[in-house]
């Protein structure tokens, strides 16, 4: 299933290079194992695609059944049999899910609630609860077979029949589906002992990758770069091929940020009053001075330009930039509210500085960030006029979330199956009192200027405005600082309250799941969330909230890695920013003349399809992390801004980027254009355009383009005369770039 053939053909070459590589790797190299997990196989009857099945809760010593002629009621449990899996220490039932399709074409996600090794080597009994996990659907009608597949680490098994209510019914087997009885499939040789959850950081089920240094897995390199950067380029792909993922990660985690040739814009504070002639831009007189002054100080233009320049061209800074951007969509402040670039830069520095730091530090610095203080009103909250905006949102959106979570990110439920609120309005009221008394440092800080709101230095405490009554904060087992006594200093109380929040057990799974959704996949398995939350809770050295360890664990997780992902519920819609930067980087983005670099003034491209950077419509970001795609039970945050309108907008984005350019103008001093010369050369060299399609398949689709898709694009491309290879290349790129197959990062 994975790349063993590829690897074997390379073995001799690699062996001959091994000595050299060892010398290099010995200094700083880190070993990357084979990223490919085996593909699970659901056992079926010998002569049909009906899954072997029995009632749940029978003894594990019960012999393997020979028949699948049992039917199950909705909400009951069924035991199925799987082989060809290789479990890590601590990898248990929540690493698996069942995707079930009924005769009406509806898909359900069933939870796997138990897994037990059988006496047969490499064979496991898994117990499935026949109820949609999201609880959105009514149960499937119990009138015949479902087609079920077991998914694990982004891979999917064969699909087999399972009778619901009765066996039989209208659903048809997949084309080419064959029986998969015991003995028809390769057995893995991994120990079948299931160990209790431990701290093991084992990466893959395949312990001995038979290749040398570097990272030869072409498909997974591109997938990795889509997750860790703003898009693969030839240069970075070749570098990872050479040095491997872990070495590259180590470089990125320690690199200076931002890039040397793209420093943060250094913008002076300006009056919040735009009509203030002495401190603002003067009268709105249409002068060039007024135009440029407004643009540079009272709009997000310089921040967006800087941000996109770093995304397009940053080298060693890609990972930090990517994670900071993910955090910016969690700890949202918006330029819609305060249109000044200077404070947005101050805010963004906190995100980037702490992207690989400690989450507790991020919480403190962000709480006292004057931009946040302005946006969510903490800078105006006093004991006489307390404001609960920030206290509510720091809990709801930035740390613990609304409902009590298990450590794998799933909801805890009470006896009536209802989710359990994490806190009450009373908690909000109490935290509000804690957070009173802070204000802008307008006179005594390094950036203070008379008469100007200081959006650069942290908020300062005015103890006379601080509510010194006693408070009761978040309650949880062994809660830190659940109560705060009377008459404390506000700064002391703030630290106590942040410790109370930071140590709440929800923070690990809440932050981990959010980051996984941003970087890897919209619907991670609970096991994936649980593995990352465990790292958040303890980085191995007893430290909680170590983001460096968290980011690394996400990107090296076996659910993130692998050349091919076949789970039907794996992946995510590319957000507009990622769609734009991935296309731009993939096709060597340059200035409008192609004579130099782009100026980074490309925010309009993403803004047109729902994501104008640094101007989120509300604190809930451009899209909420718990959005469910209408008509499905599938979480898909980015789908909240995928409407009929923006779907056409995405096609038009493809049209702009492939067939047009951003011309030079006052706001775009160099302009932007993609360079398709390499693709055009391929179309020139091979008039059948197969090489062009091969290149696009490898670079954009991780080598997963279907035969149908390729054939359709080839027909369109070759309808253009071979004397016009540039148009052929453009047509091919447009079709891949605008396809749903590419819009979904998988």
């Amino acid at each position: 299933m994975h790349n063993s053939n590829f690897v074997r053909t390379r073995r001799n070459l690699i062996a001959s290079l091994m000595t050299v590589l060892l010398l290099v790797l010995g200094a700083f190299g880190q070993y990357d194992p084979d990223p490919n997990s085996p593909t699970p196989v659901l056992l079926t009857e010998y002569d049909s695609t009906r899954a072997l099945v029995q009632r749940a809760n029978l003894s594990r010593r019960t012999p393997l059944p020979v028949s699948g002629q049992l039917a199950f009621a909705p909400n009951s449990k069924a035991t199925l049999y799987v082989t060809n899996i290789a479990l890590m220490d601590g990898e248990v039932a929540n690493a698996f899910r069942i995707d079930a399709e009924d005769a009406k074409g509806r898909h359900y996600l069933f939870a796997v609630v138990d897994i037990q090794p059988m006496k047969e080597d490499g064979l496991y009994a898994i117990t499935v609860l026949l109820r949609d996990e999201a609880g959105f659907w009514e149960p499937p009608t119990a009138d015949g077979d479902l087609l079920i597949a077991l998914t694990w680490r982004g891979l999917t098994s064969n699909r087999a029949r399972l009778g619901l209510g009765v066996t039989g019914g209208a659903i048809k087997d997949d084309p080419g589906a064959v029986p998969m009885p015991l003995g028809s499939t390769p057995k893995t040789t991994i120990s079948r002992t299931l160990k209790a959850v431990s701290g093991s950081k084992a990466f893959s089920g395949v312990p001995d990758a038979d290749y040398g240094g570097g990272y030869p897995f072409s498909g997974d390199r591109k997938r990795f770069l889509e997750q860790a950067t703003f898009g693969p380029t030839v240069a970075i792909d070749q570098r990872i091929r050479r040095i491997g993922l872990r070495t590259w990660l180590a470089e990125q985690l320690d690199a200076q940020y931002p890039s040397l040739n793209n420093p943060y814009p250094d913008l002076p504070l300006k009056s919040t009053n735009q009509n203030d002639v002495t401190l603002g831009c003067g009268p709105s007189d249409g002068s060039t001075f007024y135009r440029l002054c407004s643009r540079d100080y009272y709009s997000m233009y310089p921040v967006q330009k800087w941000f996109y320049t770093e995304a397009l061209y940053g080298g060693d800074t890609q990972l930090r930039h990517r994670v900071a951007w993910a955090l910016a969509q969690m700890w949202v402040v918006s330029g819609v509210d305060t249109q000044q670039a200077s404070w947005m830069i101050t805010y963004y520095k906190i995100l980037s500085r702490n992207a690989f730091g400690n989450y507790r530090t991020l919480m403190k610095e962000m709480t006292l960030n004057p931009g946040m203080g302005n946006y969510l009103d903490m800078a105006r909250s006093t004991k006489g006029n307390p404001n609960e905006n920030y206290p509510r949102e720091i809990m709801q959106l930035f740390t613990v979330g609304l409902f009590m979570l298990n450590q794998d990110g799933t909801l805890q439920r009470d006896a009536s199956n209802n989710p359990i609120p994490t806190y009450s309005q009373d908690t909000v009221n109490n935290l509000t009192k804690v957070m009173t008394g802070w204000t802008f440092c307008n006179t005594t800080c390094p950036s203070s200027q008379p008469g100007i709101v200081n959006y650069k230095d942290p908020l300062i405490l005015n103890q006379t405005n601080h509510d010194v009554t006693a408070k009761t904060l978040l309650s949880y087992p062994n809660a830190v600082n659940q109560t705060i006594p009377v008459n404390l200093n506000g700064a002391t109380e703030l630290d106590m309250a942040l410790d109370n929040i930071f140590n709440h057990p929800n923070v690990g799974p809440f932050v981990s799941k959010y980051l996984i959704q941003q970087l890897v996949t919209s619907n991670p398995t609970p096991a994936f969330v649980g593995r990352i939350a465990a790292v958040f809770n303890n980085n191995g050295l007893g430290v909680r909230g170590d983001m460096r360890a968290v980011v690394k664990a996400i990107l090296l997780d076996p659910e993130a890695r692998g050349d091919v992902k076949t789970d039907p519920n794996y992946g995510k819609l590319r957000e507009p920013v990622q769609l734009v930067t991935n296309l731009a980087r993939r096709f060597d983005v340059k200035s409008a003349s192609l004579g130099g670099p782009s100026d980074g003034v490309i925010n309009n491209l993403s803004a047109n399809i729902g994501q104008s950077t640094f101007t989120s419509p509300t604190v809930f970001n451009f899209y909420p992390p718990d959005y469910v795609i209408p008509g499905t039970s599938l979480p898909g945050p980015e789908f909240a801004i995928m409407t009929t309108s923006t779907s056409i907008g995405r096609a038009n984005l493809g049209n702009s980027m492939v067939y047009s350019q951003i011309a030079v103008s006052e706001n775009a001093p160099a302009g932007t254009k993609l360079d398709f010369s390499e693709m055009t050369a391929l179309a020139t060299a091979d008039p059948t355009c197969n090489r062009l399609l091969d290149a696009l398949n490898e670079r954009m689709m991780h080598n997963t383009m279907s035969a149908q898709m390729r054939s359709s694009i080839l027909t369109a491309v070759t309808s253009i005369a071979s004397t016009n290879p540039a148009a052929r290349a453009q047509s091919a790129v447009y079709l891949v770039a605008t396809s749903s197959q590419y819009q979904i990062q998988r």
Partner: protein
Amino acid sequence: MKETRRDFLKKSGCALSMAALATQMQHLGMMSALAQKMDDASPEGGGAYKALVLVYMAGGNDGNNVVIPNHSDATISNYGVYSAARSAQGLAIPQAQLLPIAVPRMGGLTYGLNPNLGPLAAGGINNGIHELWAQGKMAIVPNCGTLVKPMTKTTYQNGTVQKPYQLFSHSDQVNQSQTSISNGQSFSGWGGRVADKMNAASNPTGLLPMITSISGAQLFTAGQTTLPLAINNASTSLANVLNPSGFTNTGGPARLTSFNQLRTYDLSPNYINAASHVTDLAMQANSALSSTQEVTVAFPTSSIGLQLKQVARLVKERLDLNINRQIFYVQVGSFDTHTFQLTGQTTLLQQFSQAVRAFYDEMTAQGTQNDVTLFTLSDFGRTFIPAGTGAGVGTDHAWGNHMFAIGGSVAGGDFYGVNGSNGTPFPTLSVGTSAPDDTDNGTSAKGRWIPTTSVDQYAATLAKWYGLADADQAAVFPNIGNFTTSNLGFLP
């Protein structure tokens, strides 16, 4: 039910596919002779045209400054009570500025609307919505909010009645007002569920989905089988609003063919299926929206003005689109006025009033004023006690709020809803321990009204007028049985 693209195409029918093909060609300017519109076909099924238009006041509109006692009756909260609570911090609207409305339900007492709902001193293009009250075309449902079951201060405080989850939180209260389900999370909106039940019978040959949002993806519009149309506001013509560009380039027609083919491939991965499904819906709607009739009334150029203008265009196109029943979502905001409410809310209410009045007048011009009902919802109301003082004064998140319903079929000029402890649907404007409608006791109480009328009742009243069968009511509004009535009577 999840719908595969195959199902969708099957349901859409052959006629649509042909029309779609023809109009795509027209867009390309190649074969306009083929692009036959279905002008002559009168809509089948479903009866006369009706539409619901939701104006969502995003961020939580401070209803306490929109509908205000304008009397001095000492037996019930009067202007003095209002003024005493809000004037010291500068948030009270002077009584002389209130736009009077007589309210039969309140024994004929006079209340007052925020002055920004009437003629404007400058920049107005119409007289606003205030005068629709006297014309009997506008009703108010006071103190309406999310509820699981009827609730009093006693049951709120002793916990014997289930509360809506996460009261006072924006995202959750938005979701609950749009789903009409407050006892747990729901992934479908009540508009979407109404459409699930009614679309097949009401719009059997409709060329658009039953629901259109002019404000992006909204939970209100999402059903279990219904996907909404989402389009740009009137700054883009209907003909261009979903029209992909660039297929006139070299190789364009062949590229369009492939572009359309790719949407039908590789649909096993559910995310790819979902993305293709949305794009497909857009391309089909694009085919249907090839010609445009313009409105005749002047609309403001604010966002809400342009949104409602686009709705008015679609209403005018209803025959060409074979639509008998239609639901629209538009949005104005943000009303989240923790600070600087005086300037912020003023601007937004002016935009709201001017745009809604233009829309009502346009419906009258089209002769559809009795067929179209516009109504408001918001995240929640805001605290009666202000936060901050002076120019920066604002209000915090609260609960019950005052809703508006406007249209020729509305039995306007009155309050509707369930009476509270004071014997009327209007809350008692007092705060703290002795206040019957405030959630909290003590000195930190801020005046968060416990609703007497639920969003469910309000929504069910609208849905019944729209044509939702009684037999389907419980499926669309699963908690409606918890309340004494499902019809508040403002749409007889």
